[in-house]
């Protein structure tokens, strides 16, 4: 009786499969890139509207990256520069002559940039770094998951080591004279420390009986709609190619 109840509780707490998994997110990303890259200029508005709608629906937070002032200025200047210098001036906005062809080309370039940025942002925010490693491992780069795991953990340690080496050299007046030599010493000391740390990691991994040839690729997150999204992506891409 008790066992049954425990089992029932366990089943209630069982995690539900997410709607979109790694493959689904990858399909959406690849489909967005495919559509926007191969769309001709006259259809870019429809293509980008479709891609932006899908990205906004799935990753609403990705719009934040595009709404940054620096990027908006960059996109604005892209349109302006094209309008001013590409093609013959045929319209006038205020006192300044613009080329409608240039403006059109600038808007197309800006739209492409926005779609790509949002697609990358949406993909990187929804997929874990280990899932990317898992995907690449399945493409033939075996052991990549292990290496990326080490790389992520090494980031802070390497930063600390570089700061320590730099400070040690600086405190001993290393950069006062012979700066090139000091830089070389900095690099060698830093690399030697990093490789020694690598040796420790190798020993630790081998002590835990890690062997790349016996390791399975990192698992990918599965979603219930992955198959449908993949099929839909193919159909949309195919339809776009047919229309174009």
């Amino acid at each position: 009786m008790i066992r049954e109840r425990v089992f029932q509780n366990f089943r209630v707490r069982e995690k539900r499969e997410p709607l979109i998994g790694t493959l689904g997110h990858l399909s959406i990303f690849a489909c967005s890139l495919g559509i926007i890259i191969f769309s001709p200029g006259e259809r870019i508005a429809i293509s980008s509207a479709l891609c932006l709608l899908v990205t906004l629906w799935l990753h609403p937070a990705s719009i934040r990256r595009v709404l940054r002032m620096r990027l908006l200025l960059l996109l604005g200047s892209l349109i302006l520069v094209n309008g001013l210098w590409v093609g013959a001036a045929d319209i006038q906005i205020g006192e300044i002559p613009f080329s409608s062809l240039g403006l059109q080309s600038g808007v197309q370039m800006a739209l492409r940039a926005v779609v790509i940025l949002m697609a990358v942002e949406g993909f990187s925010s929804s997929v874990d770094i280990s899932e990317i490693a898992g995907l690449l491992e399945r493409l033939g780069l075996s052991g990549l998951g292990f290496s990326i795991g080490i790389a992520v953990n090494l980031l802070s340690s390497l930063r600390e080591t570089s700061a320590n080496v730099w400070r040690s050299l600086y405190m001993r007046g290393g950069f006062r004279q012979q700066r090139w030599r000091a830089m070389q010493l900095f690099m060698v000391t830093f690399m030697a420390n990093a490789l020694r740390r690598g040796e420790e990691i190798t020993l630790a991994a081998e002590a835990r009986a890690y062997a790349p040839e016996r390791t399975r690729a990192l698992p990918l997150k599965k979603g219930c709609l992955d198959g449908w999204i993949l099929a839909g992506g193919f159909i949309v891409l195919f339809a776009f190619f047919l229309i174009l």
Partner: protein
Amino acid sequence: MKFTTRQLVTLAIFGTLWGVVEISLGSLLHAINLPMSGMFLAAVGLAIALLGRLFVPRRGATLFIGVIAMTLKLFSIGSVVIGPMIGILSEALVAELVLSLFKRPTRLALLLAGSLGVLWTLVQPFVTNPLLFGRSIFLVWLDILDRGAQLFSLDPNAWIWIVVGLAALHLLVGAGAGWLAWNTGRLLRVRMVASGTVPLET
């Protein structure tokens, strides 16, 4: 592409170093809008990757380092990442192809791989700009001529000299990266043998 545990760790170290350079220095150079920052970044990154190849002299090692650096860049906080990501991967691929022509990584192989890898940064806009942003190749060409003319203080009409100058500059900087990698590798080996740590696969 099968590596041992030790090789995977070594590749992870060099991949992280390239990734750190791309994340920190790349973002800084991008923010201050320094001319030829792509060439400079490629040279530093390739020097690290080539140094990694000295420690893991196996086919695919340079590409593996590039993939790690690219993945780290993808998850970094910055502005536009797709261009640098393609750049990292293609530079690593070019270096890998050149190094694959040699049995072992020699000084000449490193110089060639560095030169051609850095030269790719000059060619890359002709591939990525039309594909990703729909920019015409002619505009990319004009942009490069303009930058070259400013850099060498030449008339933009002297396009042959600008192109030759830019290519020579890229090749020279790339060769410098290869040379730096070779020399640092030798120094490191001496240092590690002296300190009693056996260098990895040298």
